[in-house]
Structure formats: structure tokens, C-alpha cells
């Protein structure tokens, strides 16, 4: 076997035809392996991303090729009170929902980390809101928050707390509360389960040692759990903020931006302007306006990741 293999290997080394190079050179091989994924990402992600920014500088409409109009779309938006309302709504929605998702999610993760019967089943059940398609659960919320037949209004009336039905999705304040609540409801399982995974990597002996030293439960949390969990919190919250900020389907299924634009987010407004009203250029300008916020979120995520690697003493592998 060996004396057959050696003479064969030698001429290959010296000749190295173009074909064998394509087949064996690891850079070329890597390139071939990357082709399918890269094709998808370039044609349907990178190119549209650039095209979107270009579109935002044109007056394209559906069915009509646009011309370059410089920053006209943005100037138009600058004076558009509905646009600013949607920015305000988006920031409010993102901030309140993310903060509460984090607080409740962390609390739920700590609860689920305790020892109790049916632990595995509970954890599985908690994740169900995350599995079910957002639109479908949003429809359930739409029905729960119905103006006439809401089960919440019914229960409160029978408890004697209110006299009249609450107009959940018809009143601006209530509508905001409702969509934020639905968003939190959907996001908490994700935050809780990922943080729980982080919690499980914390060695119990740390808590035992601290308890022997007389640490209270709060001190256990503050000085052991929290610092060890920080990196994963950074990543989870970046994702959470990112997806809350660009949320579309929950709002679209529940309120479509109403009442009087009180729940319009930037994503829903851009859909309305671009697809329904046909002003692709203006819609693209609105969605491009989300990019700076997005970049900020990505920076945070990146530094969160770096810090995690550094904390755990990993190399960059």
C-alpha cells in the first residue's frame, strides 16, 4: 500500500494542475462550501439592504421607476408629525416592553431554577407563547381585548371594580398598554429560558460558600448570580431590544397602528406608506431611519460578546 501511495503523491505535489488546486486548496474548498449560503445572503440580504437605502433617496412608487430626489423623502418626514409620533411610539414600546421583559424574565428564570416537582414540564409549558406564531396569539389578544366581549372587562365588572367595559383597543393609552402587554407576554419566555440556561452554568458551590459566609439571598443574587450572568444578559437583551424595535406583526394583527396612530411603530408606518399607499421611496426612508438605532444595538451586542469571551478566559475560537 505504502509503496503505491508514495510515487503517486510526488508528481501531484510538483504538478498541481488547476483542477486539483481547486479541489484541495483549503481556501478554494472553503470558497466552494460558502457559495450557497453567500449566494442567499448577498442576493436577498446585502443587495436589498443597499437597494433600500438607495430607494429612500428616490421617489419610486409601485409600478413606476423612481428618480433620484436626494434627501427630499427625509425632509418630508422631518416635518411629518405622524412619523415623529411613530418614532416616539417605537421608543416607548421598545423601552417599556424590554425593561419589563427583562425584569419578569429574570424573575421567572430565578423561579424556574429552584428545585420543585414537575420542573421539566413547567419549563416546557413556559416556552409555549414563544412557539405559537405571533400573529395567532395576537389574534387571541385581540379577542381578549375586544371592546364589547372582553373577558377582562367582564371579570372586572363581576368583581365590582368597574361599571363599564374598558375600550381596550379604542383608547390611545389603553391601546398602547395592551400592545406592550402582548409583546411582553410573548417575549418573557425567550428571556426567561435563555437566562435559565445561563443560570444553570453557575456552580451551586458558589452559593453554598457564600451562604456559609452569611450572605443573604439578595446578596447571593447581587454578588454571584448577576455578575456571572451579565454577558448573557447583554446578548439576550440586545436581541430582545432589536426585535421589539422592529416589531411589525403583533401591531398589525392587533391594531394596525390605530387608534389615531397611537400604536403605529416605524415598521408598521413604513408598511402602510410603502405597500398600501404605494410610496416605496418614502416607506424605504422610514425603514432606513431605523438603521442608526439598529447599529447602536449591534455595537452593544458586539461588546457584550467580547466581554463574555474575556470573562470566561476563552481565546477567540
Amino acid at each position, binding site marked *: 500500500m505504502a509503496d503505491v501511495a508514495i510515487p503517486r503523491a510526488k508528481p501531484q505535489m510538483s504538478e498541481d494542475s488547476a483542477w486539483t488546486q481547486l479541489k484541495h486548496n483549503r*481556501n478554494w*474548498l*472553503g470558497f466552494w*462550501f*460558502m457559495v450557497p*449560503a453567500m449566494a*442567499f*445572503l448577498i442576493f*436577498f*440580504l446585502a*443587495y*436589498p439592504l443597499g*437597494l*433600500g437605502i438607495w430607494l429612500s433617496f428616490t421617489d419610486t412608487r409601485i409600478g413606476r421607476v423612481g428618480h433620484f430626489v436626494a434627501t427630499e423623502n427625509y425632509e418630508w418626514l422631518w416635518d411629518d408629525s405622524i412619523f415623529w409620533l411613530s418614532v416616539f411610539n417605537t421608543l416607548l414600546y421598545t423601552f417599556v416592553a424590554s425593561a419589563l421583559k427583562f425584569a*419578569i424574565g429574570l424573575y*421567572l428564570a430565578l*423561579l*424556574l431554577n429552584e*428545585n*420543585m*416537582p414537575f420542573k421539566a414540564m*413547567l419549563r*416546557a*409549558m*413556559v*416556552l*409555549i407563547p414563544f*412557539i*405559537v*406564531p405571533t*400573529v*395567532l396569539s395576537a389574534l*387571541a*389578544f385581540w*379577542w381578549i381585548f375586544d371592546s364589547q*366581549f372582553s*373577558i377582562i372587562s*367582564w371579570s372586572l365588572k363581576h368583581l365590582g371594580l368597574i361599571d363599564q367595559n374598558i375600550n381596550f383597543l379604542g383608547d390611545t393609552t389603553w391601546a398602547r398598554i395592551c400592545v406592550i402587554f402582548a409583546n411582553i*407576554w410573548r417575549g*418573557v419566555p425567550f428571556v426567561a*429560558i435563555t437566562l435559565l*440556561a445561563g443560570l444553570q452554568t453557575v456552580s*451551586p458551590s458558589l452559593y453554598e460558600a457564600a*451562604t*456559609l459566609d452569611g450572605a443573604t439571598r439578595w446578596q447571593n443574587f447581587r454578588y454571584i448570580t448577576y455578575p456571572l450572568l451579565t454577558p448573557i444578559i447583554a*446578548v439576550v437583551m440586545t436581541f430582545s431590544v*432589536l426585535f421589539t424595535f*422592529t416589531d411589525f406583526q403583533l401591531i*398589525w*394583527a392587533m391594531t394596525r397602528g390605530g387608534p389615531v396612530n397611537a400604536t403605529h411603530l416605524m415598521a408598521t408606518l*413604513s*408598511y402602510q406608506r*410603502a405597500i398600501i399607499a404605494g410610496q*416605496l421611496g418614502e*416607506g*424605504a426612508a422610514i425603514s*432606513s431611519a431605523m438603521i442608526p438605532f*439598529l447599529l447602536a*444595538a*449591534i455595537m452593544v451586542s458586539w461588546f457584550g460578546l467580547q466581554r463574555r469571551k474575556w470573562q470566561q478566559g476563552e481565546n477567540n475560537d
Partner: protein
Amino acid sequence: MTDLPASKVDLKSVMSAPARVDNSEGMSYLQSVPRRIVTLYLPLTIIVVVLLFPFYWMALTSVKPDDQLLDLDRYNPFWTWNPTFKHFHKLLFESYYPHWLWNTMYVAICATVLSIIASVLAAYAIVRLRYKGANLVGGLIFLAYLVPPSILFIPLATVVFQYGLFDSPLALILTYPTILIPFSTWLLMGYFKTIPFELEECALIDGASRWQILIKIVLPLAIPGLISAFIFCFTLCWNEFIYALTFLQSTSNKTVPVAIVNEFVDGDIYRWGSLMAGALAGSLPLVILYAFFVEHYVSAMTGAVKE
């Protein structure tokens, strides 16, 4: 170890100590039973009830007769004694629902399979071939994960139109991988890293090509990761809304989430039963899939975040 903390807690915690014997771990014996009820079971119950109530409500509404749905005074709204399958019947035989279900399934499976194939190749190349610039490409793919569909749908709509894919399932099958590939590539990179290098080195010495190594050694060892990626991608496809809403026009081509929102929501005051039946029927396949693969699902979700 037990002596010192026990001196600080009351008798009850000592009484609850037997519980430690069967499912004991850690320091839960330090807490008394009433304290555990207030700090653990009560809040947990409240949260779980709130998280699951909408599904109960969805299921209940879908089997309630119409008159009970709207008459909250004569009937207790929290239960029904005469469930009906009228709404499901209407859904299955008087609407396009089976069509929509089939469309969703078809799009989800095609897009998932495409993405998994592309991701396996990409992840293997990044982790094991380590070609020039592999780390950079890995970072770029992570960035791609952070680009949300709400920014891309407008330009993508024009792209889809230019390629003549508008209103065809192919539009979704080709665009969904942009959401799925970054995620599953990162997940699979994590799995591939755990497979020992030595196995591949042995195979290389025995004369296996990279392709053979991938098919015969790496993939069989990464099956749990593949299942995780597959399930998670499938769920993401099923859940996707904005692309399906933008790229599809005709009623019979729609996917379940879009169709329910657009076709079922009319002025009819009695629509709620069939609406909720549709929502329930659209969620059940995913919940069943999830029930069988909880572990894989969780590892997919946490794996992609942890990497």
C-alpha cells in the same frame, strides 16, 4: 455543613428536610414550606396562568356555540357545556384553510431544507476548513442575523417583482433563508466545534476527501444540532409574517398567519369562533412538534444566543 445554616432557620425547615432526601439538590431545604409557597409557587403559578390563559381562551372560543360567545350574562364565559365543532367544520370545508396550511408547510419545509444545506456547508467551512478570512465571514454572518425583516421587506418586494416571483411560494422559499441561514450557521458552528479534530485527521490520513468527512463523520455526529436547527428554522418560517404579507397576493397562495388576518377578519360579529379555531389549528402543528423535541428546541434557542 447542615449544622451551621440550620441553627439560623426555624424548626419548620428542619421538618421539611425529609423532602431533601428524594429530590434534594442545593440549598432549598433552607427555606420553610410557607415561605416557599409565597416566594416560589405563588408567583410562578400567576406567571404560568397568565402565559397560558390566551391559549385556553383560544381553545374555548373555538368550540363555543355562537350564542354563548356573545351572551356573557346568561352563560358563564369561562366554560361551556355544549361544545361544537361548527367553527372547525367551517374552517376545513368552507374556506381555503387546508390550502393555507399546505402552503405554510410547503414553504416552511423547502426553506428550512435549503437553509440547513447551505448552513451545514458554510459552518463546516468556517469552523474546520479555516480558509483565509473565515473569522471575518463568521462575524459578517452574525451581523446578518441582526438585520430584521422589517427593514428589508420594501426593497425585497421590488427585487421579488423584478425576478418575476411575486405571488408565488418561491418568493418566500428564497427569501426565508436570509433569516434562517445566519441563525443555523451559528448554531451548527457551535456543534461542529465540539467534534474532535482527531476524527477528521484520521479520516484525512485514510484518504477521505473533505466532502466524505463532512458526510460520513461530521454530520452523523452533529445530528442533535441538525434536529435543533431544523425545528427552530421550521418554527421561524411558520411564524414569519411580513414577507408573506407583502409578497403574496392571491387568497389561495397565502400562508396561515397572513390568511387568517386578512381573510377571516370581516365585519361579521360571529367571526370570533372561526377566527380562534383558525388560530388554534395554525398553532397546533408547532406545539405538537415542540412537545416532541423540547430539549432540541431549548438548545437551539440558547445555543444561538450563547455562541
